[in-house]
């Protein structure tokens, strides 16, 4: 039971972070389908940091990992920003390209790192067993991960930034009616760049949290197994609002956690459902949820439409 709660919260943290990233980007008007790729890059950054700069001090290790992860994520998101905002490329296509590219790049990099340390190691796996322990705090048997707090703080901060600050108001204006924002002197291009960079930041962070959730090594060949898209589903289900995203994340996180721990529950094990079914569950739930909530979706009105100063 404890394990289920742990997994639920950590997966929910990942989903929230990435969904918030998508949220900022879409509120500014740019659909970010490349979140999978950004997550992979962030994960790569964090894993590399843990391997290249190992430290025994928890605070230093956490800081280094997070900083490198978000930097990787942000740099990668520049690809999306430049293509979609400045060159007005199709946002769906660029996002897909970034996903494919992200996994490929990460695989190539990890392979090369492994091969350079040991020519016989051609795997795409990075390990961080010792480093991971620094992130955990055991309170009464509940394995508590610092990332959970980070996710919560960011969730609350996002709410304030989006709805209570000048930046948030202007950002949302760019996603709803960029011509209106431009007419009062707001630089839509800059705002959209901010939105995408923030999504790079949060996506990268989500990536590193994901590969550390419950495991101490990651095989980069598989990317992030569709988690980026699950986060998008969370974002849509949460109707682009941080407080609802949190609830949606918990729901989806729960189902994802279940596939890890169902063997620990006697009554579930007795049902003899194949493990593949549990793997499918989060995706099925997403589809069902989306089927019911997409009809009256309140997506930012101008998202996906490249902003062109000349159009009225």
């Amino acid at each position, binding site marked *: 039971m404890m394990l289920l709660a742990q997994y639920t919260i950590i997966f929910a943290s990942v989903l929230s972070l990435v969904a918030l990233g998508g949220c900022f980007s879409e509120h500014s008007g740019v659909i970010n389908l490349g979140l999978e790729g950004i997550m992979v890059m962030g994960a790569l950054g964090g894993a590399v940091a843990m391997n290249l700069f190992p430290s025994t001090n928890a605070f230093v290790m956490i800081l280094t990992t997070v900083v490198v992860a978000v930097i990787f994520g942000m740099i990668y998101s520049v690809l999306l920003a430049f293509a979609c905002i400045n060159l007005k490329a199709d946002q769906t296509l660029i996002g897909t390209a970034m996903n494919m590219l992200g996994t490929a790049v990460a695989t190539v990099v990890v392979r090369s790192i492994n091969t350079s340390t040991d020519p016989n190691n051609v795997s795409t796996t990075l390990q961080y067993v010792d480093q991971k322990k620094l992130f955990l705090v055991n309170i009464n048997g509940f394995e508590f991960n610092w990332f959970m707090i980070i996710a919560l703080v960011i969730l609350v901060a996002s709410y304030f930034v989006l709805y209570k*600050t*000048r930046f948030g*108001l202007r950002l949302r*204006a760019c996603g*709803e009616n960029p011509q*209106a*924002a431009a*007419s009062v*002197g707001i630089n839509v291009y800059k705002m959209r760049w901010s939105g995408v960079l923030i999504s790079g930041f949060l996506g990268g962070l989500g990536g590193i949290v994901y590969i550390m959730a419950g495991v101490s090594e990651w095989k980069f060949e598989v990317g992030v197994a569709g988690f980026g898209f699950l986060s998008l589903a969370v974002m849509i289900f949460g109707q682009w609002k941080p407080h609802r995203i949190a609830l949606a994340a918990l729901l989806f996180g729960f189902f994802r956690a279940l596939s890890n721990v169902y063997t620990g529950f006697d009554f579930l094990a007795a049902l003899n459902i194949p493990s593949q079914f549990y793997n499918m569950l989060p995706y099925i739930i997403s589809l069902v949820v989306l089927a019911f909530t997409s009809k009256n979706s309140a997506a930012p009105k101008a998202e996906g439409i490249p902003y062109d100063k000349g159009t009225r």
Partner: protein
Amino acid sequence: MVHQHFKLVQCFTVLDNIILGVEETKHGFLEKDEARKKVVALSEKYGLKVDPDALIQDITVGMQQRTEILKMLYRDNDILIFDEPTAVLTPQEIEELMQIMKNLAKEGKSILFISHKLNEIMEVADRVTVLRRGKYIGTVNVADTNENELSRMMVGRDVQLVVDKTPAQPKDIVLDVENMTVASKLHNNNAVKHVSFNVRQGEIVCIAGIDGNGQTELIYGITGLEPVKEGKIIIDGKDVTNLSIRERSAEMSHIPEDRQKHGLILEYPLDYNMVLERYWQPEFTSKGGFLKKDAIRKYSDELIEKYDVRSSQGSDTIARSMSGGNQQKAIVAREMSKEHKLLVAVQPTRGLDVGAIEFIHHQIIASRDAGDAVLLVSLELEEVMNLSDRILVMYEGEIVGELDPKKITTEELGLYMAGAKRNTSSKEAE
């Protein structure tokens, strides 16, 4: 600047829209109290009634425009630009706006008023500058000129401002709408409430009213773009209420309100657009399902010639690259040439220059004289008074008046449009 197409964020409040771009902040967090006080003060000083906490998507078009004006005043601008501000106002509101503009001028502000409505220009402006096709034509003092001279400057030739038309001789009923109700997409009520009216052969019936009173939904219900909750629609004796758009359009032509959204496929070339509603007929598609491209091209070339539709590459031109006026002419060409007994024309001259407007008015009159029934929807009072044989005024989803353009004044029409007056229309009126 008060824009022709409002630059407002639909899901923000009135207050948020006004302060956007010039927000007061404390450490980055929004401070709205001072702003709210200022907005309320301005609103009272200039008589611009608004609700600061209402969402833009929930308020009327009139209040939206007042929000736009307050945006300008809030910024203490000295130069105020009004771009086609009167399209969405009743005659009384237009009067008030004219007065507000004159007062602002008296305070020392400079006002740039962009309009194509000659009567308004004559009333409120001191000087007029005419631009034609991007070129400066001239500046005159309003006191020294008149409407005819202005229109000649605008178009380059004499324009017939008042339409020549013989009296209508209506015959059988072509369109019969009984007790039609259409739900509203934005609010929880009905946009069209139990509306009944008819249109006969050889007459032009115009639905007049302020934008947003149900005209759009009325037309959508008749043409099939929206489902009808209640009521019946009968075209040429056939009950089309539950028929698909294609089925009910057998005898109906529709010049839509939004030419880019409904009227054309902008990425298609002109000839494909010309057969947009007829491509499936045997004349243009062979039995095996293949398009007869030669036939399509020939048809398109004929229409281009007959209706003088101008484009860079003729039938090959991609519709998106054509000017608004020529796009509209193409739609008019297509709809007029299609077989029909009923012509539905919604704001057919919106955004067009005086010359194009003259052309389209002629086409509509010609259609009526050839025996068609014409249902016109217009927001331009002049067009309503000039073109129609019978006026039906819509207010908040209902028909509140059936008027004879020859017998009423613009002021009276305005009262009906504002909901201040009503007479019940009855089908037995003829």
